[in-house]
């Protein structure tokens, strides 16, 4: 199961819809870091709307992926955490997700654009809106 990586200007969008096996997770992480490096992505939005159970293994995969992307120099926002996932993650142990979160993809994109602009990155071409 390979996770598609969509590109919107210099931002990458990924949506995790099923629990990832170890191999899937490794494949996904290497695909993503390669794409981020190849286009020097400025931001990555990771959408997990479709996940209704996130155990400590999945949380680790998501966290690690976010950190890898940040190490390369891109901004990361995780979006679409389901209410019951939030409830369970906190109940299980605090601070499972270290990255910033947004309600949905739209808000995640706004956050990424805001942060990219704040960083003074002039390479971003998506700021002609509004």
């Amino acid at each position, binding site marked *: 199961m390979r996770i598609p990586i969509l590109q919107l200007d210099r931002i990458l969008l990924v949506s995790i819809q*099923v*629990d990832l*096996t*170890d191999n899937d997770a490794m494949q996904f992480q290497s695909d993503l870091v390669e794409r981020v490096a190849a286009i020097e992505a400025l931001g990555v939005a990771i959408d997990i709307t479709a996940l*209704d*159970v*996130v*155990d*400590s*293994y999945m*949380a*680790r995969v998501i*966290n690690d992926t976010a950190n890898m992307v940040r190490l390369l120099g891109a901004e990361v926002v995780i979006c679409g955490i389901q209410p*019951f*996932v939030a*409830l*369970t993650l906190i*109940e*299980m*142990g605090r601070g*499972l997700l270290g990255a910033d979160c947004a309600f949905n993809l739209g808000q995640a994109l706004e956050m990424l654009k805001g942060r990219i602009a704040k960083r003074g990155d002039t390479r971003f071409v998506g700021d002609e809106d509004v």
Partner: protein
Amino acid sequence: MSVNDSDTLEPTRLAVETIEVLIVSESDVMSASRQARLLAERLGFSRSSAYHIATAASELANNVLTHAGGGRLRASARHDHPELAVIGLELLAEDEGPGIPDPELALTEGYSTGKGLGCGLPGVKRLMDEFSLETRPGGTRVRAVKWR
């Protein structure tokens, strides 16, 4: 709406009070978690409790697979008395693996053998109401109960 075969075969009343999933691959982990959640919902647990149970089941099944190479996860209704109403749900994860060398350590917050976040077993303990762990070189059994 059309009705397919599996719909007509699905029992409409609470017929199944126990599910058991053999854990041999990672897709079994997802299946165990989903079935545990569906059972919890059928038994009348609140949605948040059902998701707690699903996450605990996922955690336990993942442990069985990672540390013992496989095993089984059972979820069953608990009654005070056979004729009385359901009052809880028990998760039982069993394997014939090498056992946990230091159970105390495995239950310590933040300790991890590498794959999780170090909150696997302590996480299950917190998500459920009762928790017990028996382990020896030759098998591990984890029991966790959530009261309704």
